[in-house]
């Protein structure tokens, strides 16, 4: 393999005790990572572990609260991304940043900071051809980028970084939009560039397979802290999974009462397209009984969002059946009402509220058209207000006023308001997704207690969560979702954490 450049080669980056706080929240806690020149380094961690914060600090998007950074062995200050670029640092994002209507050549030339106002295309083409001959892989330069396959686009993104003279590349889940074959090809080339000493790579990934196949070293973050580091060759998949999820003290199951009742929710043989439209969601069997919490673990992007959409009637399925209490369920308002189905979607402000409507109105979403068991035509603003006042009091929603727009509330209080709305009245099935994401400790404890009390009251609860601690604390039964399928089903007492890790990582 040819070296990209004789004068410029891979550079190393080292962070020393890097800490990043947002208000009272510590996103990154004393993290020291050393990435050797020419190495392929993987950064592992669950959502919210601090991976993005770390790379954003390196790239100058954030300014670390404390800690230092060495670039190419010298102490460096990176006030903004432009400074990072000047030092030879570049980043390839999860989603493409190319202009679809322009050709690859045009994309490359306009990405240069010193691109001239009038471009001499003949000269530029010659330079590009020359550049391409020095590259280990090529992409067609004269076709519009939108005509390229995803793998070609990702290769072009990487070529663009090399073209811009970057010598340290951060790849943020670079294969999430690629097929496995494309991923192997792209990562193979990247690995080749590392071995040739052209670049150093820091790759954020969720996929153990890719980490094992291509990375030299791995760093694992968990809740902002560095929890593991070492050569990939020395670590087993199970060990990495354990580091990511933290086996040290997994939450004890919370106290609970009662025994499981009859099956409330059942999804059998359900098939649907995933968000990209390329892969399939395939649920052979998902059953939730009254009085139990079924925890569905999994790394984000493995079909959890699609499952929630299937259960809320937002995504059609073309095979199988979804039933609640034995009746076909399409999540219409009357079905949900009669069958007692309630939802707590993730990010409640974006998925369960109308942000500019008031607290009163948002709390009224379930009941505004309800008149006893029938429906009503005229609103009853007085009743709505009184009821919202009572619920705000009972669920301790902190808001300046009942008339404040719900978007003015803190995340924990939005979730409390949504809980107040969804958990009041007869609840037979509660479907919850990442209910505590981004909330502070008090709100987390309170919201989990509310979910547990719904279960103890006899409701069937499906808890979709990326936080394994949350699942271990709340669930009676644990399922794992991976690549659109459910692949594990054990009572919480018999769960082996290593096995869950492997299932989450896509080992069946």
């Amino acid at each position, binding site marked *: 393999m040819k070296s990209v450049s004789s004068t410029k080669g891979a550079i190393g980056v080292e962070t020393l005790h890097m800490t990043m706080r947002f208000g009272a929240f510590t996103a990154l806690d004393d993290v020291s990572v050393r990435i050797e020149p020419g190495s392929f380094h993987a950064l592992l961690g669950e959502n919210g572990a601090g991976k993005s914060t770390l790379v954003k600090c390196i790239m100058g998007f954030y300014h670390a609260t404390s800690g230092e950074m060495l670039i190419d062995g010298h102490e460096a200050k990176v006030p903004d991304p432009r400074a990072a670029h000047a030092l030879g640092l570049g980043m390839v994002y999860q989603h493409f940043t190319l202009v679809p209507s322009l050709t690859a050549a045009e994309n490359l030339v306009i990405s240069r900071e010193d691109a001239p106002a009038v471009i001499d295309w003949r000269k530029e083409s010659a330079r590009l051809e020359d550049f391409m001959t020095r590259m280990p892989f090529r992409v067609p330069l004269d076709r519009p980028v939108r005509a390229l396959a995803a793998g070609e686009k990702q290769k072009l993104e990487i070529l663009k970084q090399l073209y811009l003279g970057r010598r340290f590349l951060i790849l943020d889940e670079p294969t999430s939009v690629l097929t496995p074959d494309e991923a192997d090809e792209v990562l193979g080339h990247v690995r080749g560039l590392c071995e040739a000493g052209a670049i150093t790579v820091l790759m954020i990934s969720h996929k153990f397979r890719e980490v094992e196949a291509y990375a030299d070293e791995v760093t694992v973050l968990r809740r902002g802290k560095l929890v593991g580091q070492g050569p990939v060759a020395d670590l087993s998949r199970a060990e990495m999974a354990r580091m990511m999820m933290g086996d040290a003290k997994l939450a004890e199951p919370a106290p609970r009462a009662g025994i499981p009742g009859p099956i409330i929710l059942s999804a059998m043989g359900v098939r649907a397209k995933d968000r990209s439209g390329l892969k399939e969601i395939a649920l052979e069997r998902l059953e939730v009984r009254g009085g139990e919490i079924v925890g569905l673990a999994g790394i984000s992007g493995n079909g959890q969002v699609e499952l929630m959409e299937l259960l809320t009637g937002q995504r059609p399925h073309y095979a199988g059946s979804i039933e609640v209490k034995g009746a076909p369920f399409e999540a219409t308002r009357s079905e949900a009402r009669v069958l007692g189905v309630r939802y707590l979607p993730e990010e409640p402000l974006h998925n369960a*509220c109308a942000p500019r409507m008031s607290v009163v109105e948002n709390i009224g979403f379930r009941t505004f058209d309800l008149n006893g068991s029938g429906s009503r035509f005229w609103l009853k603003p007085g009743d709505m207000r009184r009821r919202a006042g009572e619920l705000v009091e009972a669920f301790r929603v902190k808001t300046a006023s009942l008339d404040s727009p719900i978007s003015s509330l803190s995340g924990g209080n939005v979730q409390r308001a949504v809980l107040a709305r969804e958990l009041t009245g007869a609840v037979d099935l509660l479907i919850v997704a990442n209910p505590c994401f981004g909330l502070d400790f008090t709100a987390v404890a309170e919201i989990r207690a509310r979910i547990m009390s719904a279960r103890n009251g006899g409701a069937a609860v499906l808890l979709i969560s990326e936080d394994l601690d949350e699942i271990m604390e709340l669930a009676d039964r644990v399922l794992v979702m991976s690549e659109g399928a459910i692949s594990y089903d054990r009572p919480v007492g018999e769960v082996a954490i290593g096995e869950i890790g492997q299932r989450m990582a896509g080992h069946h």
Partner: protein
Amino acid sequence: MTIADPVDIGTRERFSSEGWLAWLARRSEAVVIPVLALLAGLAVFGVFLMLVGKSPADFYGLVFQAAYGSSFSWQNTLSRTGPLLFAALCVALPAKLGLVVIGGEGAIVLGGVAAGALAAALASWPGAIAIPVLGLAASFVGAVWIGAIGWLRYARGVNETIASLLTAYIAIALMNHLVEGPFRDPASLNKPSTAPLAEHLRVGNIPGWDVHWGLAVGVVVCILSWLLIDRTTWGFAARIAGGNVRAAEVQGLPVGRLIISFTALGGAFAGLAGMFEVTAVHGSANASLAAGYGYTGILIAFLARQNPLAIIPVAILLAGFEASSGLIQRRMDLPDATVLVLQGFVFVAILLSESLYGRFKIFAPERWRAG
């Protein structure tokens, strides 16, 4: 187990009703910002007038005189207000669902043609029955025309703004085809029209006014629309869907049906405007139907923050601008299009002001204490 007080969260806030000051502050944002934007638009237009060598003071004085200065000018203004009320509702009702429909002109024109063509067939019916039937027919045509835009949006993801604008041009072409072809009265030589309406099918004036019934019906329809949006469960469901369609779907609300019914209702009102234009103003359907009311309605709905009650005063204001264009032409030697330029300035100011909502602490009582 019981789970009383999982965590003590300390001082609990109590709720009484908000003070009147907070109530007023919260509601005044939707009045203060559009009024300021309107004034800004008028001011910038004033600069434009000075650049072409005219006095803004003379101009606005004339507008006031021509629009509101005498009982004659009031009647002139109010008779233009009726169709504007309907046209603005055709924008405001879909807007509650987050849709920007700007093709009300198409529904007005086709509603007018439907009324003009049907009137010939109903000439033997008594007016008290035939006129409501004409209204229903025009509403139906308008409802189908704009409701189809809603359906395309919901079922096929077609951008409703572009679709409604382009279909308005189709509607105008269709009207020209119909009044020059199948529905043409052979006696209409210079201006192809449908047959003149029989006298008993003409809608007359409100007793004691020189303004036809379209204004009264328009005001009633605005009030009913406000009740629908603000006081009924259907309106509430529409506001949820307009506020966040994902939340509405999770609540199991029939988003598609809401979109189609609100666009269809808006279209029905626009169709009704066409019917009044034919039965009360022109006496037959012809190219005069495409008078631009549908486009002025867009400006009115935006100035009124899509609130059907606010549409009434705003429509009177904009009708006044239009009513004054003749006098301005004669007295200030300015072209006919001057009022359009004025409307354009106001519209740009309104669009710019959209970015100001939520910026000012004075309108958000929950931020007062933060200092």
